């Protein structure tokens, strides 16, 4: 592993007395390649093999476009809601002391631990017209279950811990003196939060948004029960992939998957740039 330097002074790795580099790196790379890289390259290879005309026909199919719009749109709304409430939850958990804080804090991770199918049927039962919340909302003319609103609800559930767990540690690091200085200089509490604290939290909030959004776009299990799954109206992109697979239409399934991967990649790239920018601007 350490042999064959490409040029003088170039080393693949720094020398170390610790053994096992070749074995552990070799095994890790082999495992990674077999389980992740080869299957994912297969997807890219298959979609490339489709040819541009076929790919374009699938990509511009009305049903595909609607499904992608629904997936990305609902994930965007849910992540935005989570940014607002997730930041408030994180603030309360970090700054306020109240009985049961530890339990509430642990509860935030529930969406990580609860299988998505369980969350899906529970939320559907809750928001169905005869459910605990659905029956309260029905007289107001608000339908949640079996509509795109239901998708948003499921994605809020799924995405919440991403925002809280990204923002919380940064809030804990905030130096109280900064707030005291702001207050001494005559800022009221609202100004201190809006002008001093939030800019410092912005990169973490953007990261939390990105994680919640990315997870929401790909989410399947919790959504399909509550969505109603009407083509063109409440059918998410991952479900359309499953439907195409069940029709043995591998080409369409592959193309939609490739589009989803590419779009998520672009989104994350943009958010990464925004993050770098806000870090530079606000330190």
């Amino acid at each position, binding site marked *: 592993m350490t042999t064959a330097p490409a040029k003088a002074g170039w080393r693949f*790795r720094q020398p*170390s007395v*610790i053994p*096992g*580099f070749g074995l*552990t*790196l070799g*095994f*890790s790379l082999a*495992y*990674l390649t077999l*389980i*992740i890289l*080869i*299957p994912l390259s*297969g997807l890219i290879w298959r979609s490339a093999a489709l040819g541009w005309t076929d790919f374009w026909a699938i990509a511009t199919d009305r049903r595909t476009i609607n499904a992608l719009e629904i997936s990305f749109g609902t994930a965007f709304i849910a992540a935005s809601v989570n940014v607002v409430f997730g930041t*408030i*939850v994180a603030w*309360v958990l970090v*700054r*306020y002391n109240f009985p049961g804080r530890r339990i509430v804090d*642990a*509860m*935030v*991770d*529930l*969406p990580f*631990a*609860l*299988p*998505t*199918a*369980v969350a899906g*049927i*529970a*939320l559907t*039962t809750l928001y169905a017209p005869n*459910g605990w*919340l659905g029956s309260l909302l029905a007289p107001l003319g608000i339908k949640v279950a079996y509509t795109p609103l239901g998708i948003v609800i499921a994605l809020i*559930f799924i995405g*919440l811990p991403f925002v809280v767990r*990204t923002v919380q*540690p940064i809030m*804990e690091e905030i130096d*109280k003196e900064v*707030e*005291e200085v702001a*207050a001494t200089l005559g800022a009221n*509490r609202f100004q201190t939060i809006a002008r001093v604290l939030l800019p410092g939290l912005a990169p973490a909030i953007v990261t939390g948004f990105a994680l919640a959004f990315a997870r929401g776009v*790909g*989410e*399947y299990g919790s959504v399909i*029960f509550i969505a109603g799954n009407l083509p063109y109206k409440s059918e998410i992109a*991952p479900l359309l*992939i499953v439907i195409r697979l069940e029709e043995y239409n*591998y080409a369409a*399934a*592959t193309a939609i*998957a490739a589009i*989803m991967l590419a779009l998520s990649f672009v989104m994350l790239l943009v958010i990464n740039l925004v993050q770098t920018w806000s870090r530079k601007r606000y330190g």
Partner: protein
Amino acid sequence: MADPEIKSYAPHHESQSAAVTESRPAKAVLMIVTFAFLGIFLLLPLIVVFNEAFAKGLSAYTEALTNPDTRSAIHLTLLVAAISVPLNIVFGISAAWAIAKFEFKGKAFLTTLIDLPFSVSPVISGLVYVLLFGAQGLLGGWLKAHGIVILFAVPGIVLATIFVTFPFVARELIPLMQEQGNGDEEAALSLGANGWQAFWYVTLPNVKWGLLYGVLLCNARAMGEFGAVSVVSGHIRGLTNTMPLHVEILYNEYNAAAAFTVASLLAGLALVTLVLKTLLEMRYGAELAATRGH
């Protein structure tokens, strides 16, 4: 990331002067918003699961649990977790050793690749194996000729589960082992231990709580995975149905009580996971220092 003091997780409630905290009404509003939001989005769904599971009484609950299809779903879920979790533990330890103990080119890129499965939709995680092993897949013909069945059988389910739970152990161990440095291992080696002994008697005890933490999360996801497994399983009742898939089938058959009965087992698993996770964070917070914050 590195400073354990910051991660101690105690609330900052020492002597808050009025200038650096919110007014009482503002505080009250924020607390109410938090409790209402978490109550509606987290607590209510959890209560619904258990309420529906026991809606028809205890005898219906036990009857649903002893159903042969349910039992085989439980067996399959345990089997899949028993295969995929240990494999990911071996990978996680191996990757963490290579990445944390050595400096080499391309390390950051490798670390990014390990996280890749988290940014892929579960459905796509299943799809890639269908494209590889399916009848129209790249290896489909060869597999059929040799009589090897991967898709719509246990091997496919295991592979999809490994894919989605792939990063959990590695991403817990890498920052932890990086933070601990190589000093302990170097001391052990200079005292005459061989590499294996240094790992077994020095590294492993140092990272055991972090490892347990990663395994806990890995296992919860392995037993609860739905999307990826759903794509590769073929939904053959009593054969390739894991617990989450069985929940779906029962629910779609309008057998809500039975669906929620199986769901309540999974919810129980989630609660146990959360309790153990919280205990680990409380007791060994410092040793998990690197893991706080995601």
